[in-house]
């Protein structure tokens, strides 16, 4: 299975418990508690981690980019886990991209960057 990596984004959610369920059940991530209102979701043995908090911070984003080597494979894998995609893998000038969202309005972009000039 191809790996998924992120640049460790910080996101805001309304309900930490509900968010933890989403990351655990759908994305297969482990949840490490930081305090009562925040935690970090990590995927073991990979470079994928997402900081989740009920509090608002200036460094938070609602657009999370998940890089993968094979978008189609990850798309099928996540779909089989129950993730509902807003956009199936489609072509952009930079490569292949699919999109899904969580219940708190955060948008996740699964991206496979491709070099077309080689």
């Amino acid at each position: 299975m191809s790996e998924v990596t992120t640049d460790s984004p910080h996101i805001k959610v309304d309900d930490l418990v509900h968010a933890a369920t989403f990351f655990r059940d759908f994305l297969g991530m482990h949840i490490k508690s930081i305090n009562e209102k925040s935690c970090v979701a990590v995927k073991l043995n990979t470079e994928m981690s997402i900081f989740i908090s009920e509090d608002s911070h200036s460094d938070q984003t609602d657009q999370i980019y998940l890089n993968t080597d094979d978008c189609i494979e990850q798309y099928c894998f996540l779909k089989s886990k129950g993730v509902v995609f807003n956009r199936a893998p489609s072509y952009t000038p930079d490569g292949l991209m699919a999109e899904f969202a969580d219940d708190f309005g955060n948008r996740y972009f699964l991206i496979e960057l491709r070099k077309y000039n080689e």
Partner: protein
Amino acid sequence: MRYVRELSNHNRIISENTCRSFYKPVDSGAYTIKFVFSGVESCTISKRNISIFPDSFAVLNVGTDYNSAIDSITPVNTLSLYFDESFVKDFNSVCQLNDSNLLDGKLQNSPLFIETLYPFVGDMRYNIMHLKSQIDKGLDNEMLINEYLHHCLLNYYGIYHKEVVQKISKLGFIKTKTREEILKRLVLAKEYINSNYNKNILLEDISAYCCLSVNHLLRTFKEAYGISPYQYLIQLRINRAKYLLRETDYPLSEIVGLIGFENTSSFIRLFKHSTEETPSRFRKEKYAEN
């Protein structure tokens, strides 16, 4: 090693690594797309002989009488995708019909593509290389296979549009029928160059193969592709030399012979002119990258 998989929608995949094989479909009730990852596979369509190299892929329509053969000292790695006729028909309708016609369920006839070699580049290459890598790991997930096949057809439609539809519009004839007919012949010219790139090709040979006079061929080829048949041949030889420099450890003198050059120094000059570096420097850089 041979991988055969038939899906519930009757699409089929065959991947193999073999030195010798001969295949003639008993009932060619499927559209076929053939890829080669190493070596060369020969294919006879009616009376035409084409050679599929790793930089191109071949497309065959449903019902086409053809056979394919491999005869090599080193194993040739191939992948053949067989798309069921109704699957392609349905895909074609979705691509071409507008929403109201789709809702009315108006299906068009089975599409007929130009059966020839197409460049194995861009998204098609990425997706097929992913599929191949999954097959090498024993892929068994039907949903994933279907997704790759769907994207393969989508990518093929993109390549077809670029290689056929856009090129037709570049030809300066008034009648659409004439433009289409000329492009079909130019496609044959390219196919001939692709399959015989390492031989001493004469313009007269290409012209006889594609049924265009030499003058007509030169003028229309340049109109459609922006370069002359000779420039296309040199570009093809350089690209195939790059592949051999990257993927094999053959000495340069052998590669020069394999791609149809008689003189090593003239090859080095052309290579340098095209890539702005010498073949040995190109090879060193590719080794370092890997």
